[in-house]
């Protein structure tokens, strides 16, 4: 006899570990992200059977196999569309998309944009390793100009895309960034995304130790990160540096890094506002090392009705105005006449 699972039992990380052997390369950043997701989701108060993890194709896209939840390892670049279908069909599900920089921004760029602009209530985790892992090392749309890879022995001539800029320009309501190795912060950001009602996009810097090792070390390495990474916190001044001595100011429409030790009054420093108009977030998103520190955390978090909710509203409204037709009424809904 099978036993009925209790509606919302106290779930633990272990409940979300599937029986499938994890098949990423030893040392891959994907492990850390998997582990954080497995840690965060039990705490959300959502029954296990309501989680659906959808992915495209790529190393990162093997993710759903390792989550003991509903999972769909789809085709390259199309995960947002399948997630959209799932969410429209059943808005009660917690729908997640796991994707790579190639999957999301190369072949799948258009679907990403459209899922975001519709404000579908899906959580999109983009594992950005700035390389094609699964196909063994070609450059990706986030690889830096001049990148030498298997397909670009003389260096790539493609300027990279900036995932956060694209997400913001696509009107995403929740936009954040995290790093595979900053696990605690990563977990916080994932949880924030999970609790956001609407499309949530997280770019996660993920190390591919096989084909693009140490891609983010120039700013995330332990010895430099204090000065090269800035963590955004809502309604707090944006500060970084070993003692939080640095911050930002707007000067002639441009962002400027300032140091309070240089006598800049603290009151002039920008305070982070997750709810502000998209372009402040845009400004912060585009900061890049070495000119600026790299921002992590939640860049934008605003609320507006989701696509599936608006659609449901129409269904409700239509039903209020008109009862469902019976089959007979449906058939007779045109102009009819009788013979015989």
């Amino acid at each position, binding site marked *: 006899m099978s036993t009925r699972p209790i509606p919302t039992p106290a779930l633990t990380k272990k409940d979300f570990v599937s029986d*499938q052997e994890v098949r990423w390369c030893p040392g891959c950043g994907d492990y850390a992200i998997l582990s954080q997701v497995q840690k965060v989701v039990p705490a959300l108060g959502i029954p296990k059977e309501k989680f659906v993890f*959808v992915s495209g194709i790529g190393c990162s896209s093997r993710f759903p196999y390792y989550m003991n939840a*509903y999972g769909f390892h789809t085709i390259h670049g199309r995960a947002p569309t399948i997630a959209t279908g799932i969410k429209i*069909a059943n808005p009660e599900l917690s729908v997640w998309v796991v994707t790579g920089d190639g999957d999301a921004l190369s072949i799948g760029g258009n679907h990403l944009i459209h899922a975001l602009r519709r404000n579908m209530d899906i959580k999109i985790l983009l594992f950005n390793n700035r390389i094609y892992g699964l196909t063994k090392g070609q450059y990706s749309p986030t690889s830096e100009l001049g990148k030498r890879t298997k397909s670009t022995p003389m260096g790539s001539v493609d300027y990279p895309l900036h995932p956060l800029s694209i997400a913001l320009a696509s009107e995403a309501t929740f936009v954040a960034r995290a790093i595979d190795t900053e696990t605690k912060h990563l977990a916080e950001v994932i949880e924030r995304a999970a609790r956001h009602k609407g499309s949530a996009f997280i770019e996660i810097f993920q190390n591919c130790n096989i084909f693009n090792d140490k891609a983010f070390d120039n700013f995330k390495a332990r010895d430099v990160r204090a000065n090269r990474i800035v963590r955004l916190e809502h309604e707090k001044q944006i500060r970084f540096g070993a003692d939080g001595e640095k911050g930002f100011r707007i000067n002639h429409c441009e962002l400027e890094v300032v140091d309070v030790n240089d006598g800049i009054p603290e009151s002039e420093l920008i305070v982070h506002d997750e709810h502000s108009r998209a372009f402040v977030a845009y400004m912060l998103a585009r900061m890049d090392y070495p000119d600026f520190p790299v921002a992590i955390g939640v860049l934008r978090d605003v609320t507006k009705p989701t696509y599936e909710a608006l659609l449901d509203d129409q269904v409700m409204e239509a*039903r209020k105005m008109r009862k469902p037709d019976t089959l007979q009424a449906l058939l007779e809904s*045109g102009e009819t006449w009788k013979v015989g």
Partner: protein
Amino acid sequence: MGKTKTRKRPVETPKEIEGVVIRFAGDSGDGMQLTGTQFSSTSAIAGNDISTLPDFPAEIRAPAGSLPGVSAFQLNFSSVDIMTPGDEPDLLVAMNPAALMTNLPDLQPAGRVIINTDAFTAGNLKKAGYTENPLNDGTLGNYQVIELPITSLNAQALESVDLPKKQVSRSKNFWALGLLYWLFDRSLEPTLRWLEGKFAGNPILIEANSTALLAGHAYAEASEIFASSFKVREAAIEPGTYRKIAGNEAIAVGCVAASILAKRPLVYSSYPITPASEILHYLSHYRHMDIRTVQAEDEIAAMGIVIGASFAGKLAVTGTSGPGLALKAEAINLAVMTELPCVIINIQRAGPSTGLPTKTEQSDLLQALYGRNGESPVAVIAPATPAEGFDCAIEAFRIAVRHMIPVMLLSDGYLANGSEPWRLPDVSCLEPIEVRHPSSDDAEEFLPYARDEKTLARPWGIPGTAGLEHRIGGLEKDVLTGNVNYEPKNHQRMTDLRQEKLDRIADFYDPTEVDGEPEGELLVIGWGGTFGAIRTAARRARKEGLSVSHVHLRHLHPLPKDLGDIIGRFKKVLIPELNMGQLSIVLRARYLVDAVGLNKVEGQPFKVREVHAKMDEMLRSK
């Protein structure tokens, strides 16, 4: 210009005739589609059998008076059972020179043509490519010509209506319609009623158009330009409640019916494309039936949304046309691999590439069967007539859900836009579509790829069901668990299973109907929208004493199991198709029968005459 050459003669009582083919032709702005539709509805309501063929321009608004701007609507109405809109019209209404130029060649020898002389200005003649005025140069010598200054006559009639001149001119199609209503002894009631509904908020337009209709009618009566009027009696069609329906509408209604029969909400996701967009438009009016339409960013996304909705347990369907089907191929294959039920509607149009978007063709059959990587069986069915779209939509879902397989529904531009009277089915005869989702009770033994013994369907376990958590995807799956499996033998077994599952769909077919003798000289096999032309031609040939039977295939994949036997009972096989021989390839390969093709890709349906001539030729050459 504008002179009225009417040959007045005393009016007699209506002459009875079996049926008539009329074509209304004019500029896109002349409202010909509307006129045709009104005449069709009125005739259907009058009890005639009808069949229609709209032919509108590829352009949204081609320049007024130009050849590409001509819009036409052909209607066959009859007192006997008819199955096509007719080969050549008996009567042509030409509202301007361009319409005459493009449509006159199709008119029956000695056919009748009604001409709006007001439109035969020097400018319009030039736009139509006439160097001489065809009204004067003998062009019309072999036809019965009725020349009328319709624009002016209509304007006169509407003098008292308070509308600007341009607007007044807009009702001239109703004036012409009134004229024809008199000629064919039709009641004005249905159209008057329709006008009231249509322009409910706009009484001035009701007045203008009604006045025009009545004026045209009165003019025919009073002027005695016609020697007599004609009467087409009610057809001896089956008793029942009828509704005029076009192919796309029938499919849409069928989808809604499937949702009712399956007691499951339906998701329709599509990217607009001619000639499939209307299905999206129709279905978007059914929110109150829990039907969600989603206009996707492209065809791939539409298919992705359908796959997602199916995974989540909804009836899911997408609609497109040829180029869109090509784009969906990769995603359809994901549905094949994950064995999720869904329906893909493809309204074929003339290809390749963008081709002739507004013209009909049957050239996506091989794409439907084989247009995906790997061994990728999907079911394929095709309606024979506009109204059959309803049955096919229901059957498509029934197959999809019963066998857990994607089903392709192949219609075409001719069916999509053409309409016929549809006898409403008895709802009590529409079988429910059985849907079963395993529940948490099944959790212990849940194997996502275990199979039903009879259908080989896998269980449709859906997210939200506690204990059934599982993972699927596009990589080859283990034969029971559905986990990724790279083993050689497993791949062979799964390939065989997917094929066998498809093949078993044929276990559920009714025996194939042969129209005509069950054996004989010539078997004609057709599929899709060519049904009417083939059946009419075959019956005509039989009446002439030829041994011709006709099998029409609704099920194209898998084929009916008795088809081979039937083919074996005939000496010759003819396969007429609006492509270069696609079903021919399938049947020749399968049954090694030396089937002959009758193939045409002109963007137009078969004429009965063409099919009949081919039968004749094949039987005479034996």
